[in-house]
Structure formats: structure tokens, C-alpha cells
């Protein structure tokens, strides 16, 4: 059997590893203090001292991009974690047991997913207030319905497979059947959705920070940098470009992984 190279997956993994490497570096060390202002060196273009130039307060953009990407990355991961874990539990139990609770939860999920998620996030934010951690909660909760639905569908599919009947016949109890035999078999599908979910979370965080309700100043976030940069788009284009490229690269890497995983699954099924 000759293996076909999965270039999307390889490229995506490489890009994401590079990004994560930079992000981890940003947590440990940055060339400058990302929040240190220096009125003497405002809006400088990229140079050897300031790799990506400086912003309107004279802060080093490279350092801010590193830490901003870190914040964005953490928010994305936390959101996907909340949505994924709750989605797996809710979808798992709904798909396995069915019944009226299943009907109720899935109809609710239908209703919630019918609205644009950024709109709902704004509603939640207006209720609980803005800030980094509140954004994580708002987006995480909003991601639960779609993950639940996905997992529920996969569980329902796996449940009718003979190996599940076989496990039950061998005496495995419900929880073991669900957690050992069914849920792991939903992960291949779940994995690429998690990657897509991560990207949506990154974009949502960027949009919300752009609107000023996400990460609060002076902490850097890619979305807020983008929003601040637009004033100086013509005088200091490197500011907007740095923040924008960081978002694009982060999303591109994870998007390629999602695509690669999906492609591998399609070939496996064939």
C-alpha cells in the first residue's frame, strides 16, 4: 500500500508548530516590554532594533504581536476546550440515550445555531461584561451547541454499528460502551471540527477585541492592534500588516490541519 503524502496536514502542522513556537517564545521572552511606551520612537518603520517597527505609542510591534498572538491563541484553545468537552458530554449522552431530553436539547441547539454567533456573543457580553475571560466564557458557551450536534450525530451513527452491539453483548455497561467504544470513534470527525472551531474562535476574538469588548488595554491582542492600526494605515502600514498577517498565519496553519484531517478521513472511508 503506497501512502499518499498529505501535504495539507504536513504544511498545516509545520506552520502551526512554527506559530506555537513563536507564541511560547513570546511568553518567555520578548525583545522589548510589549507595554513599554517610548514617545521618542513613535511609528518607526521596521528596522533591526524594531523588527516590525513601532506603534503610535512607540511600543515594539514585534513584541506586541508575539504576546497578542499568545493571548488570541489561548482564548481560541480555551473556547474550543469548553465547547469540545461540553459538546462531547452533551452530544454523547443525547446520542446514546435519546429520549425527550435529547429532543429538547437538540431543538435548543438548532435555535441557538440559527443566530450568527458573533451577535449572540455580543448579547452575552452585554450581560456579563467585557474582558478576556468573559469572552472565553461567552464564546465557549456559544460553541457548545454545534459540537453537541456533531457528536450526537456521530454517536448515533456509531451506536448502530455491530461492534457496539458486540461490546454490549460482551457485558460492557453503558458508560463503558459510550466512553470506550463510541466516543473515541467520533474523534476523527470531531478533530477537524475542533480545528475549524479554533479558527472561528480566533476570528471572533479578533472581531470582539477590534470592537473593544475583548482583551482590555494595555494588554496586546491581535484584534485590538488591528483596530488601533487602521488610523495609521497609510502612515504606518507595517502596523496593520503585522497584526493581520499574524491572524492569517495562525488561521491558515490550523485550517490546513483541519483540511488535511478531513481529507485523510475521506480517503479512509473510501
Amino acid at each position, binding site marked *: 500500500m503506497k501512502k499518499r503524502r498529505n501535504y495539507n496536514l504536513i504544511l498545516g502542522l509545520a506552520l502551526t508548530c512554527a506559530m506555537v513556537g513563536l507564541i511560547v517564545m513570546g511568553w518567555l521572552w520578548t525583545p522589548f516590554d510589549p507595554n513599554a511606551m517610548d514617545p521618542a520612537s513613535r511609528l518607526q518603520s521596521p528596522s533591526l532594533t524594531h523588527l516590525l517597527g513601532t506603534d503610535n505609542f512607540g511600543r515594539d510591534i514585534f513584541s506586541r504581536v508575539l504576546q497578542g498572538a499568545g493571548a488570541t491563541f489561548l482564548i481560541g484553545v480555551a473556547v474550543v476546550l469548553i465547547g469540545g468537552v461540553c459538546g462531547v458530554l452533551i452530544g454523547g449522552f443525547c446520542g446514546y440515550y*435519546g429520549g425527550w431530553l435529547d429532543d429538547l436539547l437538540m431543538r435548543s441547539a438548532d435555535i441557538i445555531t440559527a443566530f450568527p454567533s458573533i451577535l449572540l456573543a455580543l448579547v452575552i457580553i452585554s450581560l456579563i461584561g467585557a474582558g478576556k475571560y468573559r469572552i472565553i466564557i461567552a464564546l465557549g458557551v456559544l460553541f457548545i451547541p454545534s459540537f453537541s450536534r456533531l457528536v450526537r450525530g456521530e454517536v448515533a451513527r456509531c451506536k448502530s*454499528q*455491530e*461492534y457496539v*452491539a*458486540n*461490546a*454490549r*453483548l*460482551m*457485558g*460492557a*455497561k453503558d458508560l463503558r460502551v459510550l466512553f*470506550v*467504544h463510541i466516543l*473515541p*470513534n467520533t474523534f476523527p470527525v470531531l478533530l477537524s471540527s475542533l480545528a475549524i472551531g479554533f479558527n472561528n474562535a480566533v476570528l471572533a476574538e479578533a472581531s470582539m477585541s477590534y470592537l473593544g469588548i475583548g482583551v482590555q488595554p494595555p494588554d496586546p491582542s491581535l484584534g485590538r492592534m488591528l483596530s488601533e492600526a487602521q488610523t495609521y494605515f497609510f502612515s504606518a502600514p507595517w502596523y496593520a500588516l503585522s497584526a493581520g498577517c499574524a491572524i492569517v498565519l495562525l488561521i491558515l496553519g490550523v485550517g490546513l490541519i483541519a483540511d488535511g484531517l478531513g481529507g485523510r478521513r475521506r480517503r479512509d472511508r473510501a
Partner: protein
Amino acid sequence: MLEVKDLSITFLDDGAKAVDSISFSMAPGERLGLVGESGSGKTVTALAIAGLLDRGRVRTEGQILFQGLDILSCKESELLKIRGKDVGMVFQEPMTSLDPLMRVGPQIEESLRVHSKLTARQRKALALQVMQHVDLPDPETTYRKYPHQMSGGQRQRAMIAAAFISRPKLLICDEPTTALDVTVQAQILNLLLRINEQSDVGLLFISHDLSVVRRLCQRVAVMYKGRIVETGPAEQVFSDPQHEYTQRLVAAIPSRGKGRRQ
């Protein structure tokens, strides 16, 4: 050991009666064949006996007495006690009857995990022994394989090992050889025969192929559209079929020498 009395099974979603008041019984260690064309209700009957029907989705009438316990009306907890210990089942499709993400060895041990107090080491030793018994090649290596690394015949042997490891009283085989090619089919049939003769496990062998059932079983029940239309000793049903449907089945068996088609 097993007694099915006036069993009827109706699917609630479409109201179709898949099984219509069938009755038969099995003695310990007996090999009973259940024959019929596809869609005649064989699998549904097998699932009912194994207690695997979704009680919320079907309506059942009649009784299935297995060692005195009524499978249809007993509590789920009582079912758990006999599942994997007293009843084993081998499914038709070896591609889908093993968990694709779990190594084969642990799957063979599954019923021991629930029903025995053996340690992991003892379970593995027993699994290797049973794998040897069902002629799986190189048990130590096979133990660590995933289902997709095995052939259809090997997977079916693994299924038999899993079903047999806790020495059940009844082994239900639902068309276990239909998906296999002819030579492997013959090997699996011989294996089932050997297992039956060496222990007191009863075989409920389900097939659409009367000639296979004739080779293996002592008694035959012929199913047609959810009903059992004829029962009797295999040779007798085969040589002197009473029901018109059985006669057609027998006539459809290609005789030796004419060349068998797959």
C-alpha cells in the same frame, strides 16, 4: 436451555412485523440452523435472543426463555449478568463487528473484564490461549493488531474467540461466513463444529444458505417472511422438504459437480 415461545417482534417506527409468532427450542450443546432468505427476520430473532433489541423501538410478544430467564421481560441488570457470560454472538460483517480503534486482544477479553475477577495478566494469558484455540496465527503478535490489519477470516476468528472466551452456553452465529470466500468459509465452519464438539456450547447458526446449514447443523428451522414454516432434522428437511418455500430453497442449491457459484 433455550425456548422461544410465540415470539413476535414489531418495529414501532414503521409498524412492520419482522417476526411473527415463531417458536422453537434448543437443547444444551445442540446445533440448530435457522435458514431463510434475507429480510425473513433471522437477524432480528438473533438480536432478540441476545437481549440486544432496543426496547424503546420494538414491541415484543411471547417469551424467550434462556435457562429459565425471560429475556424479553427481565430487568436490564439481569441481562447484564448473562451477557458475555452465557450468550455469545458472531455477527455477519467482520469489517464492522470489531471496534476499529481498539487492539484485537483487549476486545477478545472484553467479557472477562466484566464477568471475571482475573488480573490483566491472567486475562491476557486466557486470551492468547483462546486465540490459539481458534487458529489465529501468532497470538502474541495478533493480540496487538488493530482490526484493519487483519483479514476477514482472521477477524471472524477473533470474534469467535471473543464470544467463546468466557465459555458461553449459547453461541449465536449470524451469517458468520457470508462475507468470506469459500475456502475461508469452510475453515470457519470446521472451527465452529470443533468448538461445539469440544465443549457443551449450543450453536444457533443463521444462514441463507441451506447447504451450509446442512453440513453443520443437526436440526433446521426454515424462516419465511417472519414465520417459521418448517422444522426438523437437517437431513429430513433437506431430502424431503414439506413446505413449498423449503422445496424452492432445496431446489436452488446447486448440486455438487455442476460447479458452485459464489
